[in-house]
């Protein structure tokens, strides 16, 4: 498989064409999409038209972007003008956004070819894609197991070689966890680095768009294209995109890296063994690796499952049958609102809305939501103290390898626990990367997670690259 930068080079230099790359991607999608349920919508005509435009620009001798002719998959909570966007929910079935997300505009400007919309947990609420209203995605490494979630379709698209690049969103681990379970690279960027304009909101203070790719260098390339200030997102960091591609081979010599007990304890033995081996690789590459503990991280899961549902209950109030999507009739407007939401939302979305509404309701606000916001402060301060002593932290991405379908659906709490290692980064607004490293139970993929402070993407990618090289990948 060629990397994204190799494909773009081939297209620019005439060894390939954007149209040829699109046909390769469409062929790969046709071959396995029925089996794996990766794409909810494949935009064949739009992809072919976009490829034609790139090829025409090259023929004219125009400057084309760094992703010229590279197919990319979009999670179905990212708006693309005129393309069905459902968040894998019945409540948005048939809706076509009247505008595109900033990340989609930037992909097109860079010459990339959006191929369609990938399956996900409904409104990004889940860790397996089993809450999708349109059926789960299957893990390309073992179709009897989940791909992780919520960006499970995007992770599977890359793992099944349908597209070299995909975008997902990460609110509590929704990029890193499926990347780990599908054996690919996933980056949760610093909060505000990538514009959220056109990302359908789940929990606005936690959501961040990021790359899912086969290689670390491709993640750097894709993140460079989508990052940078956007006046249409008021939480967007007021600074240009960082230079990342040039730092991928920087290595870790002289870096101090903390091995975080709280990001390893409770993981299965095969996962722990991979983290142990990653630590040895980082040490051999010249990093000073030290044992570390951040006890505050143990409160992350509880705080997250108060804060994220609270924000979701507010964000999802907009789905009321008035302006877009599903409407189920009722005698008056309140009955219509309620009938629409009851029919349109699945069980997990209802559970989170209920949980959030409760955490924000009179009498419980201070005890739950208010306390969780204070824990968030403590977590930010704990990370800040840690990063005075070390440059990066390392741990597992997930406690287990990919699990079988249905094994966690009856007990929501057991599903929530699969994000226990990824959630703290979102609460702190910081950055983290999951890199496939080692092999676990049944030959399945294991992800090692590297965490850093805000704006540490270049350092994280360089460290991820050290692990990738040790695995003999590209």
């Amino acid at each position, binding site marked *: 498989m060629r990397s994204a930068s190799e494909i773009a080079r081939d297209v620019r230099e005439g060894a390939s064409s954007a149209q040829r790359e699109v046909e390769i991607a469409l062929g790969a999608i046709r071959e396995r999409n029925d089996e794996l349920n990766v794409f909810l919508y494949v935009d064949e005509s739009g992809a072919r038209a976009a490829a034609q435009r790139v090829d025409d620009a090259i023929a004219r001798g125009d400057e084309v972007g760094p992703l010229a002719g590279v197919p990319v998959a979009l999670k179905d909570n990212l708006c693309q003008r005129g393309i069905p966007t459902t968040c894998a929910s019945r409540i948005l079935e048939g809706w076509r956004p*009247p505008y595109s997300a900033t990340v989609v505009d930037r992909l097109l400007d860079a010459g990339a070819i959006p191929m369609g919309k990938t399956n996900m947990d409904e409104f990004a609420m889940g860790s397996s894609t089993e809450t999708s209203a349109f059926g789960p995605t299957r893990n390309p490494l073992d179709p009897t197991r989940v791909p992780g979630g919520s960006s499970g379709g995007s992770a599977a698209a890359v793992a099944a070689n349908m597209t070299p690049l995909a975008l997902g969103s990460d609110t509590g681990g929704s990029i890193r966890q499926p990347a780990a379970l599908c054996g690919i690279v996933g980056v949760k960027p610093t909060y505000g680095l990538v514009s959220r304009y056109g990302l359908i909101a789940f929990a606005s203070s936690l959501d961040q768009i990021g790359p899912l790719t086969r290689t670390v260098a491709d993640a750097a390339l894709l993140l460079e294209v989508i990052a940078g200030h956007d006046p249409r997102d008021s939480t967007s960091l007021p600074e240009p995109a960082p230079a990342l591609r040039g730092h991928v081979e920087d290595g870790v010599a002289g870096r101090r890296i903390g091995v975080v007990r709280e990001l390893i304890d409770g993981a299965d033995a095969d996962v722990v063994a991979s983290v142990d081996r990653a630590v040895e690789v980082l040490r051999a590459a010249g990093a000073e690796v030290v044992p570390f503990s951040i006890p505050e991280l143990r409160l992350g899961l509880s705080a997250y499952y108060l804060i994220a549902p609270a924000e979701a209950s507010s964000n999802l109030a907009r789905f009321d*049958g*008035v302006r877009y*999507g599903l409407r189920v009739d009722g005698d008056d407007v309140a009955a219509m609102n309620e009938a629409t939401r009851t029919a349109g939302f699945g069980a997990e979305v209802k559970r989170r809305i209920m*949980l959030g509404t409760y955490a924000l309701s009179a009498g419980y606000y201070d005890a*739950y939501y208010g*306390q969780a916001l204070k824990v*968030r402060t403590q977590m930010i301060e704990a990370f800040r103290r840690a990063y005075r002593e070390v440059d990066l932290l390392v741990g597992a991405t997930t406690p287990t390898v990919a699990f079988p379908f249905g094994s966690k659906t009856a007990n929501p709490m057991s599903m929530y626990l699969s994000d226990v290692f990824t959630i703290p980064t979102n609460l702190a607004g910081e950055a983290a990367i999951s890199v496939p490293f080692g092999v676990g139970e049944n030959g399945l993929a294991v992800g090692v997670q590297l965490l850093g402070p805000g704006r540490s993407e270049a350092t994280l990618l360089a460290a991820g690259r050290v692990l990738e090289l040790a695995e003999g990948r590209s």
Partner: protein
Amino acid sequence: MSALRREDVAHVALLARLTLSDEELDLFTGQLAQVLEHASDVAALDLEGVEATAHPFGLVNVVRRDEPQPTLDRDEILAMAPDAEDGRFAVPRILGEDQ
């Protein structure tokens, strides 16, 4: 914190504009109680004097110049709506017949 009761869940469903069947009420009461039980570690902490963080970087009052910007096309938006009339979203009646 007192245990979550079935009537609490019914009240929250009302606030959230969701209709729950009897079976769903039973199921959700148990499941939400389990999550809140897990969250009791947070609820029980003494955090007197700790500031709340609602947002990681605390960017405040981001403003732009008050100049007209291109916006979305009204007809295109209304064409995607469940119901529209005379250039507006249309909904079932809000007030009773005699109000």
